[in-house]
Every structure is written in C-alpha cells, then in structure tokens.
C-alpha cells in the first residue's frame, strides 16, 4: 500500500492489520489513520472487529500481521504499558474496573501516584474529584467502592481513568451505551475540549445520530476488514453507512404497531410494589400483546423494579400476578415457572455463562423441555439453538462456540434467544439493545413486536428515549423510584418524556 502524505502526517496509522483467534479471524486487514485533533468514528456490525482493533491499538492484543505507525514511526505495543507510555489511552467496551477498589484507586491503577512506593492518597482523591467534576459527576465519591456503582457511573469512572492518562489518542469503545442523553451531552463537551487541545479521539458507537453530532471522519469495518475510510461524518448519508456496514438496505427501523385488542387479558399485574426507599408504589399492568416501555434517568430505579417483579430481589410490599395467579415474593423460580423471563442489564455478570457453549446458554432456562427423566437430548438442544441463532443472525455461527469469544452485541442476542426458546408469557427486557448494531437492532425490534403479537406481555427498559417511544405501546416514566407518568406512547413525544424525566433535577 502506498503511504500518502496524509498518512505520513497522521498521529496514528494502521495498515493491513490482522488478528486471529482460534477458529476465527477477528481482523482480516484493517487500514485507517487518525489525525491529531479529530474525532474518528468506527462503525461496524456486531462482531465486525471494532473492539478487537481497539485492543490491538492499545497493546492488549498483539497483532498477527500488519503495521502500526505512531507519529510516522513503526511501533509495536507489546503490552498496555507501552501503549500508555506513547500516549494511547483506552476505555474498553467490557468495563475493566476492579470491584472492591475505590474510584480513586481505579482511576490511577497502573500509574499510581506515589512517593517511594507509598500511595499519595489525598492527591489521588483530589485529582479524581477534579476529573469526575469535569465529567459532570459531582455525585460520585472518589472513596466509593467501584463495584457498588451503577453501570453508568462505572462508565464515568472508566472515562476519568482514560483522562487521567493525559494521552494523545483517546479510544472510546461504546462509551454512550449506558449513558442517558444528558450524560452523553457532557461527554461530548469533554471530547470537544480535548480535540481542541489537539488530542485525537477514536469513537465507537452504534448510534448513528451521535456519530453525526461528534464525529469528523468515519471508518466502516465489515467482517474484520475496512470497507470505507475517511468518510466525512456529517455529510455521508445514513443509508450509505448502513449498507456499507450490513451490505443491505434498511428503511423503517421500528416495526408497525398492531392495534391493541382492548379486550386482551391482563397478563402481568403489579400492585403497590415497594422496596425500602429504593422505589415505592409501583403499579404496572401489561396486557397480552402489549409492549410497555419504562423511561427514566440512569439510576432512577428501573432495573430494580424489573428485578423485583421478576423475584430476583425481594419486595418489601406489593404483589405480582401473572395470569391472575399471585407469585411468591423473592422467588425467581416461581416467576420463571409462571412464564416470566428477564434479559438482565449486565449481560456479562448477570446473563451469561461465559465459558460455556452458546447452546447451553440458550437452553439453560428450558432444560426440562429437552429432558426425559432428567436426561438431556443434546442433539435437540443444538438443533433448536441453531435455529434461533440463525434467526437472530448471531455471528460467528456455531452453537458450540464459547460465549466468551462472541462480540458484545452477539452475546446480547444469545440472552434474548434464551427467552425466545422458552416461549414466555411475560418478557422483561432491561436495555435489550445495549451494544447492538443497527441491523440487529431492527431485528430485535421486529422480534419483540412479533412476540407481542403472539400474545406475550413485554416490558422494556431503555435509556434511549427514542427507542422506548418507537417500540412501546404504552410508556411509563420513572423518576427517583416513582412512576410519574403512565400513558399511550403515541400521546407523548421525546421532549415531553425528557422533561418528565428531568423534572426537579438540577441542570
């Protein structure tokens, strides 16, 4: 490949990068370059190789082939420290923080502030405070145990950590996936500040709107290869991006709502659910075929409401009924037997058996339907699972793969497949499209709609207000553990929801 003059000026340029894992080529030849002071966006479907690319660039993986130039010099980042020394800082997709250590400790892990080996704790705390303030989070204490923060706050800590490295190149792998709109705004402010100082940013997101807002140039990956690079982020057409990414044309993202039968039976009835001061007085009724969306700020308690309905947390008060039968409090088993299913918020720690095969992850909740006298029919499990993974387009295919090796979005599809297999009466989805690409996203919407049409009652929690409005028949807005609005989705718009969500919040 000829190195153009532009290449030579680039802060970072990458040529012919190849990375193979056992059984799969994650990167099959990637070329692109990043200039100082720009926001370079990476786009691609789930499993396209974005995160792998990031890990190679930050020294976490060694490439099998190809060349990385840093300020024109060929470099080899043998380990993360080498990359950090050169000025590359990364926020990984799978949050890599150490639960049990404080926020400040996590921010400075690996580059601790110390004198003769002794930690300068006050200094670390002070600087962490400053970084968090800069990210608009006065509410996170540097002394807090990171493991006790919500995912969103953990994401903020990761960003603080990356900022603390004072890098020349900041890589962010889906930082916005767990943030609410307000927080994304703050994040973008910080990014603009940085680029103004000449720092380059590589930004990964599945939300095209964000790319348009913050990005300068776009590189599209497909199946581990660069299919387009250097596209102007603001001008390029959405349809073009989508077809570059997926190889097909998508138009209407949200499926058509069928008109709801007013006589449909109430499948899920929740009355007066409360859990200490976390949330209280939650009433929720979902009819067969209805999709109910829960909107709210991160940390407003939506996940907890869902988990309590499901019995994963024990309610202090209130009742949950499925098809008119009251469920035992705090028993997941009872909920599952009654036909409930939950796609949890944190797929890695709550949803998946990472070191087990895809098919085992899918059948784990419906084992008995594959068993005679407790003996499992392995073959039937595999056949049914492959049908589902094909339908959901999980890549790479093959139900004997370990889930750990799948990309984030594909892992999410595996969790969904679990409950599709079980044919639930009630499906609770907590951030079902987090980290899922546009193509798959519309497939998931389609699926949810189909499920609802087949008579399933669906509850969706999402931080993406547009998604809630597009998908749900009815919208509930949750604020500080209370339901502050309950009404049909077509009678409310995005700005009204945001108003409700933010009401009483300091701006």
């Amino acid at each position, binding site marked *: 490949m000829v190195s153009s003059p532009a290449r030579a000026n680039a802060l970072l340029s990458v040529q012919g990068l190849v990375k193979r894992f056992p059984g799969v080529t994650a990167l099959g030849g990637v070329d692109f370059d990043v200039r100082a002071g720009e926001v370079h966006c990476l786009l691609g479907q789930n499993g396209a190789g974005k995160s792998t690319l990031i890990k190679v660039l930050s020294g976490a993986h060694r490439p099998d082939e190809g060349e990385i130039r840093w300020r024109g010099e060929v470099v080899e980042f043998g380990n993360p420290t080498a990359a950090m020394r050169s000025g590359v800082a990364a926020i990984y997709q799978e949050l890599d923080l150490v639960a049990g250590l404080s926020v400040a400790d996590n921010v400075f892990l690996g580059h601790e502030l110390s004198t003769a080996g002794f930690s300068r704790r006050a200094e670390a705390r002070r600087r962490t405070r400053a970084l968090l303030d800069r990210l608009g989070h006065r509410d996170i204490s540097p002394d807090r145990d990171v493991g006790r923060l919500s995912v969103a706050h953990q994401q903020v800590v990761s960003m603080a950590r990356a900022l603390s490295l004072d890098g020349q190149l900041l890589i962010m792998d889906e930082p916005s996936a767990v943030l609410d709109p307000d927080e994304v705004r703050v994040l973008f402010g910080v990014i603009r500040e940085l680029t103004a100082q000449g720092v380059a940013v590589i930004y990964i997101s599945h939300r095209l709107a964000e790319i348009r807002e913050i990005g300068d140039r776009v590189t599209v990956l497909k199946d581990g290869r660069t299919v387009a690079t250097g596209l102007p982020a603001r001008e390029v057409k959405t349809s073009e991006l989508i077809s570059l990414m997926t190889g097909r044309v998508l138009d209407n993202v949200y499926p058509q709502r069928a008109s709801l039968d007013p006589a449909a039976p109430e499948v899920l009835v929740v009355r007066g659910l409360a859990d200490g001061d976390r949330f209280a007085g939650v009433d929720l009724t979902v009819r067969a075929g209805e999709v109910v969306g829960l909107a709210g700020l991160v940390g407003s308690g939506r996940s907890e409401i869902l988990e309590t309905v499901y019995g994963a947390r024990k309610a202090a008060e209130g009742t949950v009924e499925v098809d008119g039968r009251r469920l035992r409090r705090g028993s997941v088993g009872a909920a599952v037997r009654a036909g409930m299913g939950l796609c949890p918020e944190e797929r890695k720690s709550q949803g998946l058996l990472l070191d087990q095969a895809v098919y085992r992850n899918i059948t784990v909740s419906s084992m008995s339907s594959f068993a005679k006298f407790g003996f499992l029919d392995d*073959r039937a499990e595999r056949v049914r699972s492959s049908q589902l993974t094909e339908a959901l387009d999980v890549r790479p295919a093959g139900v004997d793969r370990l889930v750990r090796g799948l990309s984030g979005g594909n892992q999410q599809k595996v969790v969904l497949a679990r409950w599709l297999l079980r044919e639930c009466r009630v499906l609770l989805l907590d951030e079902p499209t987090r980290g899922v690409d546009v193509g798959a996203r519309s497939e998931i919407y389609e699926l949810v709609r189909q499920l609802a049409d087949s008579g399933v009652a669906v509850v969706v929690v999402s931080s993406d207000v547009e998604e809630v409005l597009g998908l749900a028949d009815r919208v509930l807005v949750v604020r500080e553990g209370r339901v502050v609005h309950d009404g049909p989705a077509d009678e409310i718009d995005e700005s009204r929801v945001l108003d409700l969500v933010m009401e009483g919040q300091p701006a």
Partner: protein
Amino acid sequence: MSEDTAVPTQQRTPVAKESGISALLGSAAGRNTGLVVALVLLCIGGVVTAGDRFADIDNVLTILRLAAVIGVVSIGMTFVITGGGIDLSVGAIVALSSVWATTLATQGIANDTHWIVMVFTALLVGGACGLVNGALIAYGRVVAFIATLASLAAARGLAEIISNRKTQIVNVPGFAAFFDASVLGIPVLVVIFALVAVGGWVLLNRTTFGRRTFAVGGNPEAARLAGIDVRRHTVMLYSLLGLCCGLAAVMLIARTTTGSATHGGLYELDAIAAVVIGGTLLSGGRGTIAGTVFGVLIFTTLSNVFTLNNLSISAQAVAKGAIIVVAVLLQQRLARRSGA
C-alpha cells in the same frame, strides 16, 4: 497455535458430536491427552524399574483397589468443585460414617437383620453431613472453605466421641464376604468405583442436574436469574458428596474390617488434588469426571511404583512433587496444542 481461519460470516457447520460410549472414550482421551501421557509415562517408568512385578495383573488390581476408596470421594468432589464449592470435611465424614456404621448398636441390628443396615447407616450419616455442609453454605452463607473446615473439626471430634477413640472391629457375617468377593475376576470395590465413575459421568454430562452444576459453578448470579434454584442445587451437590463419602466409608470398612475415627486422614487434600490435576477448575464451572479418574490413577500408580522400587522415603516426597508439576505442565501444553 494452528487455528482455522474461517471468516466469521462464513457459515460454520456445527460440529456434530455423536453420543455413546465411543464419544465418551474419544472425548475423554482427547481432552485429557496430557493426563493419559503422564499416566503412560508413569507406567513405562514402572515397567522399566520393576518389570513384571509392575505389569502383573495382581499388581494392577492392587492399584485399582487402592484407588477405589479415594476415587469415589474424588468423583463426589468433582461435582462440588464444578459447582463452585470446596469441601475440606470429606475425610472427617468418611471417619464419622465408618464409626457410626460399626458401633456395637449398629452391628447388633445388622446381625439381627442384614448387613445392608450398615451400608445404609454409613450412607445416611454421610448424606446428612453433606446436607449440613450444604445448608450452612447455601442458606447460612458461610464461605465453603470455613464451613467445611468447621465440619472437619466437628465430625472428627464426634467420631472420636462415639468410638471412644477405639478402633471398632466388624463382626457381621456376609458384609466382608460380599465386599471381598470378585466379579469376573474384578474385586467388588473396583466394580463399585467403576460404577460410581460411569454414573458420575452420566450425571454430570447427560442430565439436567449436571448442566445446572456447570451453570451454578460458572456464574451463580446468571444461573439464578435463569431460574435455577442455586441454593437448593448447592445443597444437593454437598449432599451428593456426603453420600459418596458414606459409600467410601463402607468400602474402607470392608477393606480394613474396622471403623475408626482416624480413617480418611487428609482425604480432603488427596481428593482435591486428584480433581484439580484432572482439569476441573477450582473456581468452578468446568469439570471432568474422566480427568478426575485419571488424576486418582496417577496418584495411586505413583505410590505403587514407589512401593515397588524401594526408594528412600524422603526422596519419594521430592520426586512426587516434581512429577505432579510435570504432569500438569504436560497436560497444559498438550491441551493448548489441541486448541481446547
């Protein structure tokens, strides 16, 4: 590492795995190449240094008989460790079961009715101990290490109190006769071990119980949210191990014709070592019965080869340490090469 280089989008034909004995043997040998190689090397060592005395059928049966008791415990331990637990009290449970099953009272009833009473007593005591362990861990939320350490102390103390620290001799006709017999030339104890191993393999790999064990050990929170009653399952795992300990106690009673509070000394370390060397993850979520069986056989063959060779006792200990490390390294290198 030689990897296959399929592009992700390319449709991969799902590897069809046949079930049945051939698969069992094939996959067991495949995944445990390193262990098989280690065992074969050990056997070659045995033949070279002790010749016919090692390769003799009687000697092989001696090795297997020795392996049988700790083998049964190790199979139970495989379940507990795969399920994310650990049990330090196995030796003490064996002791307590052996003592309880051989008290004068129990033997009296057995004499009046049938020797099977002793077997049931041992199984009952073992199972009950396991139940207590499991309940403490699952419902009392005491760390497994500490809970079973406490059981270790308590069960051995209880065994000493019951037996009054005397060795209790078995005088029940039929009992010894049954267990000392052979089936087609294979001692009953070895047959029991084989049955437990095969049963354990089926249970772990072919049933919902086994599948849940992997899930509970791999990610208990995910298992819980998937609708598995993790606590009940944990109790069942420890109870199963308790039953195995009870069975091991019966076998030990048969072998020694005694019940004693000193039986089963340090079985916890032996069993855990066999399980872990066999490739079961100490952190849970991955376990193999075949590996455990190989692990037990490696340890017993090792001490048999030492016995045959008249080595100095201290040198044996040093050699044992070295051989363990070599076996593990071998297993790892070969497992990595085969891409597993």
